């Protein structure tokens, strides 16, 4: 049965430039002399290093433990020796640095013991944990941990699984080649994803400019029931998760909601391939397919070990002399790399060499003439020119009201803008400013609450103390007046810290002794520290954390080594 296709509004049709890099089959990139593996390569927490300098590691050995469930493990991409855990600049628009495990490969590619798992006999929970520990994240570029996307949502379960082979960005062909060459393995991965999600049907969306990939995927999935390969019209951003879900199912997932809430979830074909390898071969995610294309002599696709320095890769394709910048990701959503000696991460689907002739620099920015070309191109159905005014005027409230967070930053608006306005940059600025303001506000609120609470507590303690004092005084006066035997007799023996009070009369001495006794009793009854009485496991954990903190402090002291 042919699925009914839905349309998404907007979108653009830039020249695809796919043919350049699809002539040669996927080649294996050689191991570089040094691998720099960032510990944080997915959305969520930063994994903690499990290795130290000088340690030998096997290929696929875990070198970073997932921090909590909202994270994914990191593995050694090859066998070799750990040179250290150091801070390195990451391929990220901000140019930030983060801890990386540096490995010198021994060239032997010795795997850890690989344990294939028969997914059919495993529970979804166990498989999800396995995916987390195998470091499987979305390879479409967002690197969201896959096991989290497989949790059943409010709709009960994921009825429809969408597999994203659309690959709508110009120049990128890594998914295309993967589907052409490894369709069988992708379909195996899809079967596992489907098992975990207990999905009824699977829709594999592929843009109709990839007939070979469509044919390969159809042939590989011919036996499977409920799996359908659906060619979708080529129109950027058809491969955007929300757009593809809309095209294939008609469901529109608004900002801030998840597919699982609507009984649908979307995975990239590369992710499905990694799922197959992680479960059925026991091989964690240590490599990915990367398109190296643009202004180069020999464009193509390569299977690259995570952590390979990008400049090592570029040697394989011979960039031309007039190349003036390198873009990671596609030309619509990718970013210009600040340098090329940065490690390749799980997020890197393409390195595009750009020259002024091939990808011209934008012309000077003119004022907005409200022509509305952006509105017609916006797949999120926003009014980009209005958002531009609000972002420019720092009128963030209005920007939010007009849906700035619904913007997927696909770049269609800026692509069609006759005034050359860098619209997406304005939106990014507004969004990050709003997030910062929100964080600051939350921090200020928390501080104010703490302050008010402290004032209240001090006030309360003062009044309580006064009341206690008054009551005590009254009681002791009463006692003296009644001529009763002072409390000294009932009190525990006076400690040697109690001063000798020979000059005082007996009553007073008795009162003081009673006070000391009370203080002592109070001391004894004080709650134990929350670190006492812990289970040995907890204590071990605390020691571990303390050790790790010390290590981090140590790391912070040594200046980060400049990568060569």
């Amino acid at each position, binding site marked *: 049965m042919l699925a009914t296709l839905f349309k998404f509004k907007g979108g653009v049709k830039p020249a695809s430039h796919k043919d350049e890099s699809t002539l040669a089959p996927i080649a294996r990139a050689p191991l570089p002399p040094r691998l720099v593996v960032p510990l944080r390569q997915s959305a969520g927490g930063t994994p903690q290093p499990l290795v130290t300098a000088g340690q030998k590691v096997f290929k696929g050995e875990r070198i970073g433990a997932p921090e909590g469930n909202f994270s994914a493990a990191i593995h050694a991409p090859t066998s070799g020796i750990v040179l250290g855990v150091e801070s390195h600049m990451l391929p990220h628009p901000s140019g930030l640095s983060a801890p990386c495990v540096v490995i010198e490969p021994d060239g032997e590619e010795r795997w850890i013991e690989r344990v294939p798992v028969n997914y059919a006999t495993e529970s979804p929970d166990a498989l999800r944990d396995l995916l987390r520990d195998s470091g499987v994240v979305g390879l479409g570029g967002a690197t969201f941990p896959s096991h989290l996307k497989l949790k059943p949502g409010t709709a009960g379960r994921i009825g429809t699984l969408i597999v994203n082979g659309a690959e709508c960005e110009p120049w990128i062909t890594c998914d295309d080649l993967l589907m052409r060459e490894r369709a069988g393995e992708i379909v195996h991965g899809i079967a596992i994803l489907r098992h975990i999600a207990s999905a009824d049907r699977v829709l594999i969306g592929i843009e109709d400019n990839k007939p070979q990939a469509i044919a390969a995927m159809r042939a590989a999935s011919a036996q499977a029931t409920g799996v359908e390969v659906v060619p979708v019209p080529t129109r950027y951003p058809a491969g955007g998760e929300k757009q593809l879900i809309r095209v294939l199912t008609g469901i529109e997932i608004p900002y801030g909601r998840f597919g699982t809430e609507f009984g649908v979830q979307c995975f990239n074909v590369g992710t499905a391939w990694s799922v197959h390898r992680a479960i059925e071969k026991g091989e964690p995610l240590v490599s990915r397919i990367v398109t190296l294309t643009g202004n180069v002599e020999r464009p193509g696709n390569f299977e690259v070990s995570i952590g390979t320095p990008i400049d090592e890769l570029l040697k394989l394709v011979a960039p031309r002399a007039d190349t003036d910048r390198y873009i990671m990701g596609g030309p619509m959503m990718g970013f210009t790399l600040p340098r090329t000696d940065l490690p390749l991460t799980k997020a890197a689907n393409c390195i595009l060499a750009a020259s002024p002739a091939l990808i011209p620099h934008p012309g000077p920015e003119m*004022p907005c003439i409200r022509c509305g070309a952006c509105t017609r191109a916006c*797949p999120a159905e926003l009014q980009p020119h209005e958002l531009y005014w609000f972002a420019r005027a720092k009128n963030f409230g209005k920007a939010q009201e007009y849906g700035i967070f619904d913007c997927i930053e696909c770049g269609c608006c800026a692509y069609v803008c006759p005034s050359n306005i860098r619209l*997406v940059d304005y939106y990014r600025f507004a969004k990050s400013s709003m997030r910062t303001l929100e964080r600051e506000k939350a921090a200020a609120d928390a501080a104010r609450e703490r302050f008010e609470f402290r004032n209240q507590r001090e006030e309360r303690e003062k009044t309580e103390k006064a009341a206690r004092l008054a009551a005590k005084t009254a009681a002791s006066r009463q006692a003296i007046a009644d001529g009763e035997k002072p409390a000294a007799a009932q009190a525990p023996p006076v400690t040697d810290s109690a001063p000798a009070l020979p000059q005082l009369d007996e009553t007073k001495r008795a009162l003081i002794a009673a006070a000391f006794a009370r203080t002592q009793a109070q001391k004894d009854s004080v709650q134990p520290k929350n670190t006492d009485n812990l289970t040995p496991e907890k204590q071990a954990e605390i020691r571990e954390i303390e050790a790790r903190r010390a290590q981090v402090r140590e790391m912070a002291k040594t200046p980060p080594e400049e990568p060569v």
Partner: protein
Amino acid sequence: MNGSPHLHLPISVRLVMLKVLIALLPGIAVYVWFFGAAILVQIALASAAALAGEAAMLRLRGKPMGLFLADGSALVTAWLIALTFPPIVPWWLTVSATLFAIVVAKHLYGGLGQNPFNPAMVAFCVSIIAFPALMSQWPAVGFTDFAAQMRVVLQSQSAQDAVTMATPLDALRTQLHTPEARATVAGVLGSHATFGNIGGKGWEWIALAYLAGGLWLLQQRIITWHVPVAFLGVLALIAGGFSLGNPERFAGPTFHVITGGAMLGAFFIATDPVSGATTPRGKLLFAAGAALLTWIIRNFGAYPDGMAFAVLLMNMCVPLIDMGTQPPVFGRKDEGRNGRTP
């Protein structure tokens, strides 16, 4: 700054404006055919004044001169002024009106993209209020002698009754809708030399040429269908309704659509993106409102054509229209048409 997207369509403000100018060419050619070459002189005068005013204001405001002079927006304003003014108005009126449009209506409001009112229409309204007689001095059909036209433009000879004539709209209005009017539509149309087959003699062909240029702009995706369709549709609907109700007093839809500034306005003036509404429903409302006001002013107002006033009045409503017609965002359609959560 991240910089994405790195790709850009080969399009610019300059190209958009250039296409608008190209789309005006057929209309100008027919104009010259019927009413002589004076219009070309007026276009040249207005263009020179617009560029001079633009250059002076750019210098005063410290803006990059080359970039903005070359954007073509001043030329579009100039050409629209020349095409909406009578072709034999004195040269100084064309020049001063254009300067007013560029200096006051455009640059004092912030320049390109910032003007709330259509500069060409501001120039038209200011001129017709200040110089009603000169602005009603339309050449008679067949008055195409260039030398004679130039003498009028340079005011070495005053325009005489022999060379000027009331426009079709003016003729119809004064004879039908003034208190002493006793004529009927059929009577006026049949008796007057100014009327052609469906509109004004000569003017009807110019209007059709504007239509051709406008359709090309539509095909080029410089404008969308909303404004021309809503403007001409509503104008035809109102005119048709009233002429059905009282055919003796109200002219029919074809006449209204093809006469005066309607066609030029529908494709070239009400479609001005800067001063117009931007949402699809907003454009429909904007154009419908302009059409309604145009028809009212044509029939009951003091001026022969209501297009310019109608557009300016609707320009004022644009912020409100845009605010009230925001379409729903992807995934939020169940929140209602204006379902933005405040």
